[in-house]
């Protein structure tokens, strides 16, 4: 058994197509990939919101003035 569908290379390459593992699971892979992508946005969005909320209370007027001057 081979995950790529070939156990040896005794083949005519003119007749070989996909050689990636788990052929036939493309839709499942896309679903997993999309979950990873959307999940990433979700985690990032939540964390950024928490960070911005925390950051808005951190400023000291003197330091902010200095930062503005520094450009």
């Amino acid at each position, binding site marked *: *058994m*081979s*995950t*790529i569908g*070939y*156990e*040896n*290379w*005794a*083949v*005519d*390459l*003119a*007749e*070989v197509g996909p*050689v*990636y*593992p*788990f052929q036939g699971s*493309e839709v499942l*892979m*896309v679903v*997993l*990939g999309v979950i*990873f*992508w959307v999940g*990433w946005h979700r*985690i*990032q969005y939540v*964390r950024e919101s928490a960070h911005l909320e925390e950051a808005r209370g951190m400023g000291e007027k003197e330091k902010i003035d200095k930062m503005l001057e520094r450009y």
Partner: protein
Amino acid sequence: MDGNLNALTTVFTEFYYWVTVVFMFLIHVGFCMYEVGASRRRNHMHTLMKNVMIIPLVTVTFFFFGWWIYWAFPNAFPGMGGISTEAGAPYAPWSENMGTNLQDRITGVFWAAFLLFSWTAASIVSGSVIERIRSSALWLHAVMIGSVWWIIDAAWGWHYDGWMVKVLGYHDAYASGVIHAIAGGYALGVIMVLGPRLGKFASDGTPRDIPPHNPWMLTIGIFLIYTGFWGFYAACNVPAISPEVIDGQIVGTTWTATNIYLAPTSLSAITFNFLMSLSGGLMAAYVVSRGDAFWTFSGGLAGIITASAGNDLYHPIQAMLVAAIGVVIVYKLHYWVERKFKLDDAVGAVAVHGYSGVVGLIIAGFMLWGAPSSPYEGYATINPIGQTIGAVIMFGLLGFLPGWALAKIQAAVGVLRIPEEVELMGLDYAEHHAYEDAKADIIAADKAALAAK
């Protein structure tokens, strides 16, 4: 070169490898920038020189014996047949092939492609030991990892005739193990003996962050490493070869690109997978490090390295997910090791290269289980046990052990680490002093000349 097709293929292959070498030079530029950016101002010039001198030292030794090792050592392991002086003869430094020779247009560019991998292996070690190792000590390590240990592992596991490929079914298409695991393991061996930078750990053992002096230099450095990595990927392939020349099990007349084992793949496949594993690594590292810029950048690299063992065959989504999983493991492992063993890996090289390489090899064993490791008959197929044994050989036997042993010898004779006073005042102190003196001297001379007018 008889026949136009033969001539064209030879010249194309010659040019192909030449271009990869030029691209790969950017890896070293990137490493230099990264190391200098990560070091503190008082250590800049020494940090830079330490890495730059890897180039000539590894180059000449790779010419003298490194390239010969690759061809003579594929079966140099107990019970496997031993060193083949016959196979190595055309690549000995006194061979006619190792010079301008119109009958051999490939050896020079192929040698150079491997040589650039050697620089990378040495440069990975160089990053983890900055700001406290003696340059003389590092340069000896550079020669050993760059022209001896990594090329032995390449002969064993990255050669169409290597015993690890034949017996273990070892598969490592873009060098998760043969470059990254070994260099990370070697760096771990050295830093265990070398010890942390002064101030790295508080008196209660809590690790302190030593921030880079120039984050932008680090950023450009790692982007240059990414760019050079493209060249590295291309250099790991044979660009165009016929089944007749491979002379293995493949039948028919269809030409193909192959990996280093002469098994079929394509540039298109590795382009998909390079970009998707880079992306998976960046995304996972951003999340796991909570948006830390440098871990995110390094995570991109770690992602590619984790997927590299199987990136000749993976589906792009698999490459992305393998990279993401690898990065999470590597990040957690880095901080666990740092806290537990009080080790100071200044640029995270052991994690980004070493742990990623090991994790990538093992994952590839499962993902590619049962796939042929070679186009030749009688070779073991790819499997998790072979890949795990391979990871132990790369990281432990040929990486960690030699690095640790040589560092122990250097420490015993007092030539490994710089004196504490020099570490505190900075490695560049003497040069900086001379620079300031020379500046004051020339300014005074110019002023005197002006006053005399």
